[in-house]
């Protein structure tokens, strides 16, 4: 109910139409959708652009320090889009920040991930952090799909409260696979390029 309301609201505001340029909008395979990050609407827009069948088993990864502070925002994140919360700072030195993500993948869910780790003010993404690489290593059967969100850095830029309704096209690119002998930097660069080439 809340989920449907959310999707409706997001579509009314920013359109969030999916363009499937690489992988098809169907399939049984588990996926990690990774995208550029420029606004708090990103996860919602990408999630709303998925067809309902895929949306039901896809969970956006959301920053704990923004989405899990209780109140309406947390209700939207938990009961609306079924977020996986991730901490951005370690509380203990031995804490594995990716544990909740790995858990969700192990349970069979697909994920929406923003490997920049923070919002960029620009149309093109910042360098990626290593989480995507480590998940790809740990879950080689998961398909990695590059996604580009095109107008949200203008709709709800960092530091603004009210979204401007501009039509956002969600471009789904090709599926990526981590090569057996590929090192971290080479892979992250390739993943970054896969998002950038959709811009």
């Amino acid at each position, binding site marked *: 109910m809340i989920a449907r309301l959310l999707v409706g609201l997001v579509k009314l505001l920013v359109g969030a139409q999916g363009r499937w340029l690489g992988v098809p909008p169907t399939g049984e395979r588990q996926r990690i959708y990774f995208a550029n990050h420029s606004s708090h609407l990103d996860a919602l827009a990408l999630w709303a652009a998925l067809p309902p069948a895929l949306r039901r088993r896809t969970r956006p990864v959301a920053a704990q320090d923004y989405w899990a502070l209780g109140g309406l925002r947390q209700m939207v994140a938990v009961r609306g889009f079924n977020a996986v919360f991730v901490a951005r700072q370690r509380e203990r030195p031995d804490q594995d920040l990716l544990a909740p993500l790995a858990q969700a993948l192990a349970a069979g869910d697909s994920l929406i991930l923003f490997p920049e780790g923070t919002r960029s003010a620009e149309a093109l993404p910042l360098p990626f952090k290593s989480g995507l690489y480590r998940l790809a290593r740990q879950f080689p059967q998961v398909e990695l799909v590059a996604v580009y969100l095109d107008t949200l850095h*203008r709709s709800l830029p960092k530091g603004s409260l009210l979204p*401007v*309704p*501009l039509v956002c096209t969600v471009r789904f690119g090709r599926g990526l696979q981590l090569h057996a002998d590929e090192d971290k930097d080479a892979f992250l660069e390739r993943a970054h390029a896969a998002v950038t080439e959709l811009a």
Partner: protein
Amino acid sequence: MSSGLIWVMAGIVGLLLLASAIGLVLDRRVQASGGSAVIDNLNARIRAWWLMVAVLAVAFWAGTTASLVLFAIVSFLALREFLTLTPTRRGDHLALCLCFYVAIPLQYWLIGIGWYGLFSILIPVYGFVLLPAVAALAGDADQFLERTAKVQWGLMLTVFCISHAPALLILEVPGHDSAGPALLLFLLLVVQISDVLQYVFGKLIGRHPVAPTISPGKTVEGLVGGGLAATAVGAGLWWITPFTPWQAAALSALIVLCGFLGGLALSAVKRSLGAKDWGDLLAGHGGMLDRVDSVCFAAPVFFHLVRYFHT
């Protein structure tokens, strides 16, 4: 709704039934030879017409407020398309929020309460003064004039101009109770039928493009043939309006001309923004602005002429 309007609506539904039947026959014929993109586009357009006529009929039936809400949504979607293609920057954020969340509701509310003196200057005067000031306070001078001009232009076009169509509903013509719905129907019908007929005439006998670099599909033959036919249709509708047949013909010709110029000017804007269509809201029609570009130019001119001569 008066009986005249019901007859006209019935006529429109009849036309659409005919169009759907023709579309079906054409589709059957080309299916045998593997189908045709032109016929598919034609049928998509006809289906979208059904939808638009249905929405409009409901708004007419439900009254002035419903019609104002409907046109406010049209303005919203058109402004969203326009600004999506306009390269705005972080410094425009507050100005853009004001456009969507203040200008649109305020403009249509002012029409709803019949405050002509304010709704006719809200955007050209207060918007013109306030929006650049707000953007300047954000402190980003990069391409400031281009950004401000584009935002103001988009707002004028999609909110100010379009809102003059439902503003016809509040015009009080002496001797004609509730002339508003008839005037609005007259405007929309002449504009849209002119678009369709210009397209048809252009496809059938079009030879000489009017502005090949801007809109290669628009031809002199299409404009003259389609324009004259649409004027004849408008003149034939005089009995639902407060006009004499000759007045209806003259106003129709003017609506046709303004609609043509609107389509042409907006094609040029679209090209300068580097797009083919404004969006993909309606299958076969492109975006909302592709459908209402001619209304944008025709509505304010028609509104002010009727207001000057008939109230």
